[in-house]
């Protein structure tokens, strides 16, 4: 697949957003980063509704600021900025929720907060983002595979079922399941690398 055909080229999304030409770009943008922000917030201990609110809040903030952004070609800068915003909002949320009994205990939240916010969560954020890229890559490559091949991959690699069980479900040999899984993985690896490269360009 040619790089330029991808509707999800982040650099071009940003440019389109900034120029206000394309509501599809916003739509795609939200679908790219929404799950990352939401997932991060959940990992930091927010409940579903709070995480959803926070996701909405972060992306609104981005929308208000994006008009004046020039996309920075240096790797990951946008992601870093989005992380900064998300991290701050999560921090604020946790601070607001924190109940501080005078002179008493040191709750887990307190400990979390007393760490300097900058050092918190970068790894979680990165993982969430990489997993989101993998999810995108899956969306992109799925049409290239026969349904059975995809199912064999999905049930083993994603859902973690044993090859033997899957072979039975799909009336394939276990070997065929292994081959199918590995073929899809090989393709996915390419596509994830592709997406990462686009990020850097």
């Amino acid at each position, binding site marked *: 697949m040619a790089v330029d055909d991808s509707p999800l080229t982040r650099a071009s999304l940003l440019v389109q957003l900034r120029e206000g030409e394309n509501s599809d770009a916003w739509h795609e943008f939200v679908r790219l980063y*929404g799950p990352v922000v939401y997932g991060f917030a959940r990992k930091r201990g927010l409940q579903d509704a709070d995480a959803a609110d926070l996701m909405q809040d972060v992306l609104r903030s981005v929308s208000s600021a994006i008009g*004046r952004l*020039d996309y920075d070609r240096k790797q990951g800068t946008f992601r870093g900025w989005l992380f900064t915003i998300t991290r701050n909002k999560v921090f604020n949320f946790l601070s607001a929720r924190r109940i501080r009994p005078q002179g008493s205990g040191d709750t887990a939240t307190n400990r979390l907060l007393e760490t300097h916010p900058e050092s918190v969560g970068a790894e979680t954020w990165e993982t969430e983002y990489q997993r989101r890229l993998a999810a995108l890559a899956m969306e992109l490559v799925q049409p290239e595979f026969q349904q059975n091949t995809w199912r064999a991959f999905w049930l083993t690699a994603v859902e973690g079922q044993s090859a033997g069980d899957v072979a039975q479900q799909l009336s394939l040999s276990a070997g065929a399941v292994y081959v199918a899984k590995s073929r899809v993985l090989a393709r996915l690896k390419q596509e994830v690398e592709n997406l990462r490269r686009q990020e850097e360009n």
Partner: protein
Amino acid sequence: MAPRQQCPERDELRQLLEGSLSGERQQQCTQHMDSCECCQAKLEEIATEGSDVSQLVAHLDAANPAKESAYWPALKALDGVYNETFVPRTTPRRGTPSLDFLLPPTDPAYLGRLAQFDVMRIIGRGGMGIVLEAFDSRLQRHVAIKVLDPDLADDELSRQRFCREARAAASITHENVVAVHQVERQGEDGLGLPYLVMQLVSGETLEERLNRVKQMPAREIIRIGLQASQGLVAAHAQGLIHRDIKPGNILLEPPNDRVKLTDFGLARVVDDVKLTRTGFVTGTPMYMAPEQALGEEADPRSDLFSLGAILYEMSVGQPPFKGNSALAILRQIAETNPQPIREINPAIPSWLADTIEQLLAKKPEDRIQSAALLAELFEYEWTLMKATSDEVPTVCKDELRAIHTRHRRITMGIGAAFLVFGVLGGMFFASRPKIIPVMVTPTEAAPVSSAEPVAVLSANAGTVWSVAFNPSGDTVAMAVEDGSVRLWDWATESVKSTFPAHRGVVWSAQFSLSGERLATAGDDGLVKIWKVGESEPVQTFEHANAVRGMALSHDGRSLYSGVRDGHVLAWSFDNPEKPRAEMQQSGAVYSVVISPNDETIATAGTDKTVRLWNAQTLAQKLPLEGHTGPVYALAFNHDGRRLASVGWDRTIRIWDTSNGKSVRTWEAHDGDIWAVAFSPDGTKIATGGHDGIVKVWDANSGSLLDRYLGHKIAIHAVAFNQAGTMLASGGRDGSVRVWKLP
């Protein structure tokens, strides 16, 4: 089970993945995979080549929020953000702006004409408009005109924003803010392109100055800091945040380089919740406050940060946050502290460096808390510096400090909070114990008013086109540009109800005699009758065009409407399908009123003539001629024998309705007169003008009894309460003011 084969070579496994083995060999290898754990692992390893793809996809099915998660509705809600946020920010426009909206010039030396303005040249072009230099042929002066970008003119959102911006900017009167003279809309009907007529300031911007002179002397920094903060005091006092303070928005007016803040193009009314929440754009990255960079809401302290960034640049010759891209700058603003000023330029006094660095605090609560405090501080130092440098004896200096100390004790109550905070903050007050900044109440720049309003009802939703008291006098109805009607309990300044009444402007809202019903007329060509307290109309009367004027008969049976296309219609409430009678005059009808005995209606509009009609049949009784321009408003007195008319020609005319003769005429305002009302006992007349002044006149002698100042721009409506003790006025500033009459 098939017999165990020898394991395939690595190359063969790779070919197996690629599907490039022969059919037979592929089958053999696949079969081998059934049972050889070693090759199973090897195949996957070859496929992923040691990347983390396997780990990334593992359990990705659980990564998506569940179907019932709040994530999905939140995601959906975000789709709407695009329209709110990005539409006006279309591609940056370059090149020659189109000036199609101008009329042909009267003199070939000019580019064109806009109302009474001869346009001379284009000064510049910003995000939302073009700035022109023009000559006001009526007032014989040069002005700057900011016109909403014609390319954006179709965009209702931009137009509303521009008008809001214009109203906001026009409400600031201060010598350190570029004055906005008037806000107009092009075209006869006043619905064309909006534009802003401003003071023309010669001289250069601070940006241009900084391009020439890198570092500035402390004295200049203090002076510019002082004047800029004073300008901000005036704006903040009006509830306006600039949001985009940068060197390019600071003009230096010759001969003394007086600071003039301009381009409140991005300023928004603080309590304009809708726009603030969606937060369309804020500022230039280099001078932007951290909270703005992080997409949070700006407050007055954000302007102080921006001013601090400018003062920093003037001190050291470079902005506090630099980077190769806007994003890099944003991150720096959010995360790093600028290099200390005195490390770069030791000539800057330490108190000034401390002050600037405090303005640049990341958290708004760590900054100097208001422009007034900052102005006070600069003023003190400025005076001190002049005292020191201008051969003033030391005694004087000490006296100055003493005065300041006295001042400080008096205001200790306010100061104490800052003192405590300052000590904790440890930055600013610790090094400057001698000063406790004093909260300054900003002085009114407008002329002293003869009375204060007893209530200010501020909707901030656009121009108020009509006001009315209910019969008991406790409620004021306001008809607003945004299509809403608001009912206020004016005594408590609280809104009792707000309802969307029309699509487009609501031109009129009137209570029935009982006060139980409310009639509204709108730009959508509808007149609606509402039961007060209900949100659906009980009756609707349709018209082919906008209904600008409306009158209700006192017997509760008839409705009269005046339409923009010149029609005057008489309706019976028992038949909303079809008007009882109709007539047409030339041009738009702006006002329709009915006499107390319900026998006569009067209409007026663009054709300069006031007309009296038989209320039953709409047979014309008399034309009343004399006005030299459009007539905007009419009022009958208590017995119906007198009619007052006002309009474009700045005069108020009193007519004898029995013979159509003019009884008295006088020039009442400096500018168009938009509104007129008789007091219920017929002894007084109130008028509201484009000059923003409400005047009350003796109806018999025409002598001026009182002036009420407060609206700084056009007043479109005035109304007495039934007891004649109160007067309400409303207009372009989006507020209604209630005045107690003597």
